[in-house]
């Protein structure tokens, strides 16, 4: 047992301690909480690097399990694992987290709840690290829930804003819907395999014998048990990573402060879903001999494709800078799911790592833009920031190019290429490949649109308010909230301070460098994850199949950028009120896209109303039926009591009194017999004598 494995639990523990201390600390001591948070992240990062180094040395999996508690003869075991997947994620999360902590020190400088913010951030980091190192599905689930909680707290950080509170609630509830499936899957898995540990020296549920057992059994629906369990666990991933049915919370989560969005909706939390699928991949991919690809992976693939295309189309029509990035994250997650579905763990994870870096970069860039434009989020009211905020512009451009997959130079291109390549080789159907190409094209298009809107053209910040700029957002509670952009005195936009731009630059460098780690020529990342032998073969690049996909994807990317430049670059809009170019072309489609296919309204109309209706019926049921029943009982008892009282009063009391009256009357009568008159007695005796004599006479006659 190597030293690092023994102290692995310390990585999540450090941020947790930081969160605990800053929670206890009184509000004003900002410096104390910031230093603690950043210090703990640095500690975790160093430990993560040690762990990464140890996995580099001996790449087999290291596992340490311990017994949590024992009930009856069974015992519940938890544990943590160190393998290449964990190492990579640890390093990525700690590094990105650290950068975001530093960035948010600057961003939240004049916010009065500074310490509370950092407490939540540390809590979030601890939870995310917990998910990463967990060897038992239960420990993973616990941390998973903590992540959900942290996201709720962070999104709803500015709880005095009703929309923020509503968004936090929305996020929490939608992720919880997914977590429900996750929990059911976990329970089913426990019942089937008897343990929740992934790897337990051969007895874990991800090991061969458990898998084979589960594959053999089939449920009543005809699905294999393993497929069923994995689909249920996938629901959790859908919820957390914002796949199609449960993606509605992610755009609204932008209400939270930008570092939050960056940390949660770019790098870590959304990645948790993908990481979960990667962790559970052996279960997902287990399939009976006859079938080539397990149905679970097919489902993952199709949801990924749909999500990618769907989110990309919406992103085209958005006007809020952070909402565009949010939708791009949703579509990129779709890409990762497709990567996992068709390519396997390495492909998915590679896109995840690269996406984490440049999406964090883009969010922080957007954050500094907003900070610069004094909390202005509507891209139509910005513009011309290229000369005003040069550092932000350059790093933002690098991020945009990486995201849209500018050929050869940027990491986005390589990771997306891997996905497209494996999608192309997917023998089940070719539709995912073609749809992914469209998604890639749209990604490139809306990113260039955004860049041109924000950085090129004239600065529309001071040109007054535009009617169309109100953002009609319907919050969760169904009340329409008209959000008035803050428009204090339109002061000049200004470049963000160093503490914010430095992380941007670092991330920009990584956005570029990271690509070369997983190129086909030198697939270090894939071999690292798949434990294959690494060897350099330049020829791979020129191989026919890979070359073909690389050419197609670069053409797509450039086409997207060109179209973006054509529509928005040449004649950037002059006034915030201008109608969008596309809108002028296709107004109905554009409004459809802007309103996000009315998905929110659909949910609202379907579930919320149903829920409201169901609540009302329950209330009705409760008041009239159960309450009625109880009232009925009460009335019955009251009735009985009344009857009892009535009976008691009339029958018994009156009866008793009557009886007594009769008795006293009788007594009176009897007493008259003994009224003290001697002669009365004598008379009675006389009569008695006569009667007795007669009786005697007649008696003895017979």
């Amino acid at each position, binding site marked *: 047992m190597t030293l690092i494995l023994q102290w692995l639990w310390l990585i999540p523990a450090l941020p947790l301690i930081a969160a605990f201390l800053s929670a206890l600390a009184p509000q004003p001591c900002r410096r104390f909480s910031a230093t603690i948070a950043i210090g703990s992240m640095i500690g975790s990062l160093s430990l993560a690097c040690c762990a990464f180094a140890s996995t580099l040395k001996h790449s087999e999996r290291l596992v340490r399990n311990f017994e949590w508690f024992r009930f009856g003869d069974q015992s519940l075991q938890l544990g943590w694992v160190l393998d290449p997947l964990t190492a990579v994620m640890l390093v990525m999360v700690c590094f990105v987290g650290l950068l975001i902590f530093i960035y948010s020190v600057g961003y939240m400088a004049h916010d009065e709840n500074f310490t509370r913010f950092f407490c939540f951030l540390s809590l979030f980091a601890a939870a995310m690290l917990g998910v990463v190192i967990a060897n038992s599905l239960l420990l993973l689930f616990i941390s998973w829930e903590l992540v959900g909680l942290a996201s709720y707290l962070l999104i709803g950080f500015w709880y005095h804003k009703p929309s923020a509170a509503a968004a936090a609630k929305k996020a929490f509830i939608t992720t919880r819907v997914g977590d429900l499936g996750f929990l059911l899957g976990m329970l089913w898995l426990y019942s089937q395999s008897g343990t929740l540990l992934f790897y337990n020296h051969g007895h874990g549920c991800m090991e061969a014998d458990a898998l084979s057992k589960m594959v053999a059994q089939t449920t009543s629906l005809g699905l294999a048990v393993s497929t069923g369990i994995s689909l249920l666990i996938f629901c959790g991933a859908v919820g957390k990573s914002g796949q199609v049915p449960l993606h509605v919370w992610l755009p609204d989560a932008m209400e939270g402060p930008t570092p939050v969005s960056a940390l949660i909706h770019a790098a870590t939390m959304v990645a948790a879903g993908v990481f979960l699928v990667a962790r559970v991949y052996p279960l997902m991919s287990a399939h009976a001999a006859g079938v080539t690809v397990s149905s679970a992976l097919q489902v993952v693939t199709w949801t990924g494709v749909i999500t990618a295309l769907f989110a990309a189309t919406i992103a085209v029509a958005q006007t809020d800078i952070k909402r565009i990035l949010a939708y791009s994250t949703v579509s990129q997650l779709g890409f990762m799911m497709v990567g996992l579905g068709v390519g396997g763990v390495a492909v998915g994870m590679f896109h995840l790592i690269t996406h984490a870096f440049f999406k964090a970069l883009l969010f922080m860039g957007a954050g500094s833009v907003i900070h610069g434009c004094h909390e202005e989020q509507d891209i139509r009211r910005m513009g011309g920031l290229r000369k005003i905020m040069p550092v932000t512009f350059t790093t933002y451009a690098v991020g945009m190019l990486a995201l849209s997959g500018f050929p050869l130079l940027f990491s986005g291109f390589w990771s997306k290429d891997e996905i497209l390549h494996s999608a192309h080789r997917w023998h089940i159907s070719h539709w995912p490949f073609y749809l992914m190409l469209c998604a890639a094209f749209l990604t490139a298009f809306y990113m260039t649109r955004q860049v041109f809107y924000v950085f090129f053209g004239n600065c529309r910040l001071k040109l007054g308010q535009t009617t169309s700029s109100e953002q009609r957002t319907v919050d969760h509670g169904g009340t329409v909230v008209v959000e008035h952009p803050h428009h204090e005195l339109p002061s000049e936009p200004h470049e963000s301070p160093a503490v914010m731009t430095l992380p941007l630059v670092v991330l920009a460098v990584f956005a570029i460098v990271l690509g070369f780690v997983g190129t086909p020529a030198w697939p270090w990342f894939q071999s690292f994850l798949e434990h294959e032998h690494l060897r350099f073969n330049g020829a791979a690049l020129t191989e026919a199949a890979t070359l073909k996909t690389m050419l197609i994807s670069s053409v797509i990317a450039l086409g997207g950028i060109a179209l973006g430049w054509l529509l928005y670059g040449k004649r950037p809009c002059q006034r915030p009120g201008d109608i969008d170019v596309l809108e002028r072309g296709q107004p109905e489609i554009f409004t459809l896209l802007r309103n996000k296919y009315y998905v929110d309204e659909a949910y609202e109309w379907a579930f919320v109303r149903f829920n409201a209706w169901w609540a009302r019926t329950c209330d009705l049921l409760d008041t009239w039926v159960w309450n009625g029943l109880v009232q009925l009982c009460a009335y019955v008892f009251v009735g009985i009591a009344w009857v009892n009282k009535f009976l008691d009063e009339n029958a018994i009391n009156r009866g008793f009194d009557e009886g007594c009256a009769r008795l006293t009357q009788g007594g009176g009568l*009897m007493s008259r017999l*003994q*009224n*003290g*008159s*001697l002669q009365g007695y*004598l*008379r009675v005796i*006389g009569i008695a004598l006569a009667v007795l004599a007669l009786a005697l006479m007649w008696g003895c006659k017979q």
Partner: protein
Amino acid sequence: MSPLSAYLLLSSFLFAIGLAGALTRRNAILVLIGIELMLNAANLNFIAFWRFGSHTGNQVTGIIFVIFSIAVAAAEAAVGLALIIAIYRHYKSTDVEDIKTLKG
């Protein structure tokens, strides 16, 4: 009618008169006198049966019974009259109707 029935009729008539007196008269002493009469009627009955009743030889139970009855009657009369005196001393009247306090 035979002498015995005559005597019996006489004694029952005496008894009836005694009873009537006891029942009707207002004065306690007369009630007592009525009782005495009734007792004497009974004695007469005894003697009549002793004389005319069917018995063997000189049985004397009738006479003995009368003697005892007379003795008892005398004792009773004595106590009765003593009572009347005591009542009189307390109630200042020997009227039966006044002595009604011992009632149920």
